[in-house]
Structure formats: C-alpha cells, structure tokens
C-alpha cells in the first residue's frame, strides 16, 4: 500500500507538471492572436448601435484593465498562472462580463458525461470484439466484423455523424437529433430527466462509438494474435481450460493492459471527436463552446476551454494510471 501511495504521488506530481505545461502552451498560443479581446468586445457592442468615440475610449480603458491587458506579457502570464489555481480565466466575451469559467462549467458536465460513457463503451466493446476475433480466428462472423471495422474506421467522423442524423432523423425519424434533453422535461435529478438525457445521447454516443470501435478492434486483434503465442495461453490450452475462459481471462485480460495505456494516450484525440459530435448533433458541451468562442473572438473562453481540456485529459490519464495497478498486478509492487 505504501508503494502504491508513492506511485500515486509520483503520478500526481507528473499530473501537475502536465497541466502547468499544457496550460502555458495554450496561454502562449492564444496570446498570439491578432484580435484583441478588448477590440472584439467593442466591436460587438458598437456593432449593435452607434457609439461616440469618447464612450468607446472609456470602454476600452475599462476593458483593458478588466482583462489585465495593461501589463507586460510576462506579468499577464504570471497573473494567468495565479488565477489558474482558482480557475479564474477572466470575463468571457460571449457573455460579458460573466466569467468564462461559468460558461465552461455549464458545458463541462455534458461533454464529461458523453465522453465517459461513449469512451468506456467503445473501449470495452472494441476490445472484447477484437480480442475474440484475435482468439477465434476461424470464426466467420468475427472475420466479417473485422472487414467492417477496417472499412468503417477510415470514414471521416463528420460523415458518420451526419449519416446517423440523416438515417435516424430523416429517413427513419426515431431518435432526437438536436439538443441535450427534451423540451418538456424539467432539469432535475429525476428519472424523467435522466432518461431524457440518455435518449438524446443515443445518436451522439453511438456515432462516437461506431467511429472509435474499429481502432480498438483492430488494435486488440493484432495484440491478441501475439498474446495467443504466449506460454501461459499454450499451457492453459494443454491444461484443458475452457476456450472462452482462455479467451477472456487469459488472452483479452492480458491484452487489456497495453490497451489501457493506449486509452490514456488517445484521450486527447477522443476529445477532438466530441467537437464535431456537438456541432452535428447540436449537443451542448465544451466543443460547441470552443467553436463559438473561437468564432466570436472570445480569447478568455477559448483559453478556459483549452485549459480545462488539458486538465480534464491529464486528470483522466492520471486516473487511468491509478487504475493501472488494479488491472496489472505487476505494477502494484513496483
């Protein structure tokens, strides 16, 4: 247990370092922007009516101070780091002067929920199917599944998502294609609301799963074809251990270990997929917020979403690292 705590502590330090570095990169990139957030706000404000130059000047001064842009860049950076600890990214432009973090917090649970469910589902289904396909190499059904996976995997995600909209929203309209939950449901911790959320997440989650599953399937199949040559598999076969038991407890179970590491490494990429999902399905979440923020020139929100994404992905990796010893007993005592 002590060894585990030490391991966890090491990982935690690494987590902090990753967050620090990732957020710094996001800060630097976002501050390369030619569009000053102050001018963007003035643009939005004065675009809606005519403004006197004096009013604009005073607004500019107020905003510059509010955004902390009246100090040199390195000081802005230190301020940014200081405020990062309390998740303070300054006022958003999209909903000025509401803090950008509030917008993020409104969007985060949606992305978090959709991603957690679809990622776990994708990972488990893809790995189990791929594992079986790797072990039962003569099964026709599993072979066919492999061909489907190879063919499905490269279709651009946007196309898959949009096809689902067309198929289940248009040709055979059985599932909701927009929004996070039904309009006649009151948001609360009630069965109706949860059911509605699940109902509305079917298509987005299914599209993410369909696209993601192929990679895991193929990866797992390749892994398993190496693992079946391991001695403990041969030994189990000679020992008369049941085929399914070997497939699950010996082959797939062992292949899960590297696949778990892969999962940690692809989480950042999975986040990209949700941006399109949210666009196509009008699903609320960080992706939609990010696109709106970028298009609206809202650098505070853009930075907030990027940093939260870094923090979320890094934390997910941290959690996976902590779970790793549970899946692989060999790591536990190291």
């Amino acid at each position, binding site marked *: 247990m002590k060894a585990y705590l030490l391991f966890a502590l090491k990982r935690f330090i690494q987590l902090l370092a990753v967050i620090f570095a990732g957020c710094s990169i996001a800060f630097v990139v976002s501050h390369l922007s030619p569009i000053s957030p102050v*001018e963007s*706000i*003035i*643009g*939005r*404000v*004065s*675009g*809606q*009516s*005519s403004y006197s*130059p004096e*009013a*604009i000047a*005073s*607004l500019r001064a107020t905003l510059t101070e509010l955004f902390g842009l009246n100090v040199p860049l390195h000081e802005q950076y230190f301020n940014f780091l200081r405020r990062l600890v309390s998740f303070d990214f300054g006022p*958003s*432009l*999209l*909903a*000025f002067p*509401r803090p950008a973090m509030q*917008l993020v*917090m*409104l*969007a*985060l*649970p*949606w992305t*978090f*929920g959709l991603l*957690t*469910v679809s990622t776990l589902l994708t990972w488990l289904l893809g790995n189990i199917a791929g594992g079986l396909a790797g072990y039962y190499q003569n099964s026709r059904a599993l072979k066919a599944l492999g061909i489907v996976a190879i063919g499905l995997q490269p279709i651009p995600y946007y196309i898959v998502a*949009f096809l689902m*909209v*067309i198929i289940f*929203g248009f040709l055979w*309209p059985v599932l909701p*294609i*927009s*929004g*996070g939950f039904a*309009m*006649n449901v*009151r*948001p*609360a*911790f009630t069965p109706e609301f949860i059911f509605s*959320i699940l109902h509305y997440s079917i298509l987005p989650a299914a599209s993410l799963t369909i696209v993601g599953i192929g990679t895991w399937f193929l990866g797992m199949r390749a892994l398993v074809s190496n693992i079946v040559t391991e001695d403990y598999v041969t030994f189990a076969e000679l020992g008369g251990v049941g085929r399914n038991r070997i497939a699950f407890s010996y082959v797939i179970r062992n292949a899960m270990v590297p696949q778990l590491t892969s999962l940690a490494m692809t989480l950042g990429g999975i986040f990209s997929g949700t941006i399109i999902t949210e666009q196509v399905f*009008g699903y*609320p979440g960080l992706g*939609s917020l990010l696109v*709106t923020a970028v*298009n*609206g*020139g809202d650098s505070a929100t853009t930075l907030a979403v990027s940093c939260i994404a870094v923090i979320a992905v890094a934390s997910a990796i941290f*959690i996976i690292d902590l*779970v790793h010893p*549970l*899946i692989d007993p060999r790591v536990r005592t190291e």
Partner: protein
Amino acid sequence: MDRRGFMVGTAVGALMLAAKGLAYGQDEAATPPLTDFPRKETLIINNPEPPSTNPSNFNMWVAGNGAGWSNGLHQLVLDTLWFIDPDKGLKGSLYNELTTGPWVYNADFTEMTANLKKGVLWSDGVEFTAADVKYTVETQIANPGMVWSAPFADAIDSIDTPDDYTVHFKLKKANARFHALFTVRWNAAWIMPKHIFEKQADVKAFDFNPPVGLGPYTLNSFDPNGAWYIWEKRADWDKTGMAEWGEPAPKYVIYRSIPNNDKRLIEMVNGDLDMIHDLSPEGMFALAKQDPTARGWFPGFPYAHPDPTLPMVIFNNQNPLFQDKRVRWALTLMLDPLEMSMASYRGAATLSAIAMPPTGTHTDDYHGPLQDYLVAYELDTGKSKIKPYDATVGQRIADMVRPQFGDAVPTDETAIHKSFGFGWWKKDLAAAGELLEAAGLTNQGGQWMLADGTPFKFTLKTFPDGVINRLGTDIAQQWTQGGVQATAETVPNIFANELPLGDYEAGMGWSIETWGGNPDLSFFLDSWHSSYVAKPGERQTARNWQRWTNPGLDPIIEKMRTTEFNDHAANVALGNEFIKLMVDEMPVIPIMSFNVFSAYDTRHWTGFPAAESNPYANIVNNWSNSKYILTQLKPTGN
C-alpha cells in the same frame, strides 16, 4: 480492494457525477414542472442565432452580455413605441405600437412628442407609463455600456413627462429622424420596466430573469444550454400594445436555435419546425420539392424573401488602392452579373445596380423610375464614352433558370423585376482596362500593375459560409480573371472586427440597410455623415464601413435631418440624389438584396404572409416585426 467492484464503482461514480452536474447546471433555469406542448397550440420557430452563450440572461439593454435577441425575447416580450414593416403591413407599414399615433415634431424638429396608449400592462400587471420611457432614456444615458446609451446621449437634451401618457423629448439639434430610435426595423430601443430595474443596484449586471415585458408572451422555460426558449401567451394579452392587431393564436411559441442548415430542413420535414429563418439556396429548392406543405416567401423560384439590406463589395476608401473612382468603376465593370447571381444564389438573387436594396417599396420608389436615367448613363473611360447599364439582366437570369425550374419562374416582366431585379452593369473588360490605364495602371501580360510597378493585388474578406461567402469567392475569381490579383479570405465575423477596425482592403458585407416599407434612408444614411468617419487605424462606428466622404454627401444628409419623415416625395428626391452620387463615385459596388430563404410549413398552422397574395409582414422571423404574423395564424388541427 475488490478490483472489479472498484472499477464498476468508478464508472457509476463518473456517471452520477455527470448527471448531478447536469442537474446542478440546470438549476438556474427556473422552470415550471413538466409541461407538454400540444402541437396545435404550439408554434415552433427557428432562431438563427447560435445557442445563447449566456442563456439565463435576458437583459438586452446591455451590449455583449450574451443575452439572446431573436430567441423570442425581442419578438414576443419586449416592445417599443413604433414599428415599420419592411413589407406591406397589416394596416399599412407603420404600427403605432405603444402610442396612439405617430411621432409629433415641432416645426424645426428640435422637439418630439409621443402619446402613449392607456391601459397597457407589463406582464407582471404593473401599468406601462411615460415614466418607463423616461427611465429607459435616462438609465441608458447614465450607463455608457448600454446599447442605446450613445445614440440617446448624442440626440437627447432632456426628456419630460407632462402626464403618465405623454413623453416629450428636447433634442440637442434638429433631427427629423429622432423617432427612428424608438421605431423597430428588426430592432429598436426597447422600453425598460422601471419598477423592475430601479430595484437593481447595478442595472448592467442584472440578468432580468425572468423577463418582464410589454409583449403578449412571457417566458415559460428555456434550455440551460441556450438552444431553445419557450414562451407562453399572457392571459392578459389584450392589455398589450399589440392587441390592436388581434390575438396571437399560438398558446406556446418555441424558438429553437439550429445552426446547421440541413438539420433545419430535416426538422421541418419531420414536422418539428414551423418556420425556418434561412436555408442554403439548394436546401430551399430541396425543401420545396420534398415537403408539399412547405413554401417560401415566393411560391416558386426564387422563393427567398428580399431583406431591405444590400450585400455589396465594400472598398476601404482610405486605402490608397481604392481612392480613384476610376479604379472602383473598373473593378465593377469586371464583374458579370449573371455569374454573380448564379454563383451566390443559384440565380435566386435580386440584383440592384444602384445603392438601394431592390425590396419592399423601393423598387417602385427608386428602381423603376430610375431605369431611364440608368440606361442613358454615360461613363467616360478616358478613351471613350460608354453606356455601362444593361437593363435586360433580370430577364436574362429568368431565362437562364427557367430550364431548371420551369413554371416556378415568373414570366411577367414586373414579377421578374421584383424577383430577379431590373438590370446591372455590363461586364466590359475593355472599358475596365481603359479606366485602369486612365488611373495610371498598366497591363503587363494580362496582369494589372500599379504606377509604382507592383502588381495590383489585394484580398477580399468575406463570410465563412453561406451565399455571401460564395459571392465573395466568385467576385475574387472574376477579378483574377480580369488581371487583378484578388484573393478571397474568409473571416468569421467581419462586422465585429474587420469592417469597424478598417482591417481590410475590400470586404463583403453591407453598409446600406433601409426600412424597406418607407423611402426614407435615415436608417443607414445618417451615420454616413463625414463627421462620423474615423481616421485610418481607428474604429469606425456603424455603418459607413467604407469610410467614404464626399462633398456631395453631407448636404444630402443634413437636408434629410430636417425633412419630415413621412414626406415621401421629398425623401425620394433626396434618395435619388444619393443614388446618383453613388453611381458616379462607386465607393461600394452594390450587388443585390440579401435574400433570405425563409420557409414555413403549413402543416400545423396557416395564415403566413406570402409575396404574391398577402405580403402583410416580413416572414424573416428574427425580425421583431415578425410578431404580427402570430395574429394571423390559424391552427390546422393537425
């Protein structure tokens, strides 16, 4: 620790956390218990804005706070003194919404009086009085961050209320257009509920949730993510300014934000949307084909509703490249109107050669009468005199699209002029060349070079998508073919950034927007006065994005400020003067009206306005004027 148990626990925990977080995030959406919205009592409208970024904020008087505007708030809840419809209107295009009659100016236009209706109630039952108007004006002047603060401060010297139903403004200088601030053309200065706002310590930080309004609807519920807003008809709807035009039929109105064009179409075909704000041209054609109950403003081609807005090429007249009007004219003559119409709207464009949207009453006031002038118009290229106007363009576009759309394309000349426009400038590369040479440019191997020997090269900034994006791409291409190195560059929000900051050489957009239903041009032209033009590098206030000044322009504007708004003949005369100046100078290239593919579905509701039979209102539903449509609707019972 049991491994399996731990993992299951983790997964369940994550889900619970997400669900809890969602439930928590929704708390601020104060919604009533489970309600159903029977289709025959519910009208579902597409809100073209992306989902609101600050969903629980309804304080529209504060700029940039992310409150949604066209999510029903400014259509159904907020209200102000007058409305002018861009189309015919129910009883004429002027609506005395909260007033008993039109504005009343004194003789020299330095004072204006508005007489308010009696018995109009705010949605919380408090009576609307002159005090609310006074509060609105004074509060905004006192808070520079508020939307109408600057215009009020610029124009109003003082406001007083002789009684509860009379508002009297004293103006800082003569202005016959002052009432425009309280007159809706898609939007205007909305009246604030004094009794609500005066309790707030900081009116700018107030989220005004739930909104208290003068319109016939109140908030029922809204999506905490800002994608939909549901409004419910007030029981005392007859105590509103709008009651004069009848009872709005739907009990519930839902505004849904659906950014994706294709999904709007799908939702309408599925019967989950009654009114679409805009589609791609192709989407509109497909909808007309696939949904027998769906239709556009025109029953057939070109379907779209022409907004009184004039998409154009905006030259940055402060840029040395475009300071010679011969260059601006040469670029105009490099464009083929038929190609622009096809490239942008697939032929469903309404072209205009002059700086006036070819919509509403304008074609009768300006375009038609000016045809003789345009046909006779002569341009001196330096080498020759040409007559650049081609009056047959509208006819030729109709002929061009007829093979594809057949009977949907009108054959009657008047209808063609209404649908496709009258004429446009002829593409004439030779004349363009002569003009450029006269301006000191030289042609070297098909490429135009500036006097200093560098190529004539610039970028044309355009929208990231939609018809304006297509138009910009096509125009840049035509210029390239003409020997000018123009590249189209897309920018996400040209009106908020590039145009006001002057960060562009040429851009697609519009600086001309009119009432549509009235020949008066003050809506945009007042802001074109040279006193508003910013220095290079400084921010330009709306709407003279081209930063153009001309000795002939200011007198027109100044004269307009002292001409009675409803003196149509005088205003048309001023308008003609303006149009002719614009033809001579070509500071922007006027191209077409902004045609909006607004569609509606008659499956659940009928009685929508239509171009040919009953153009009583603008169907473009993000205009707050569109609220009058609700009084004319009837449920089909489906």
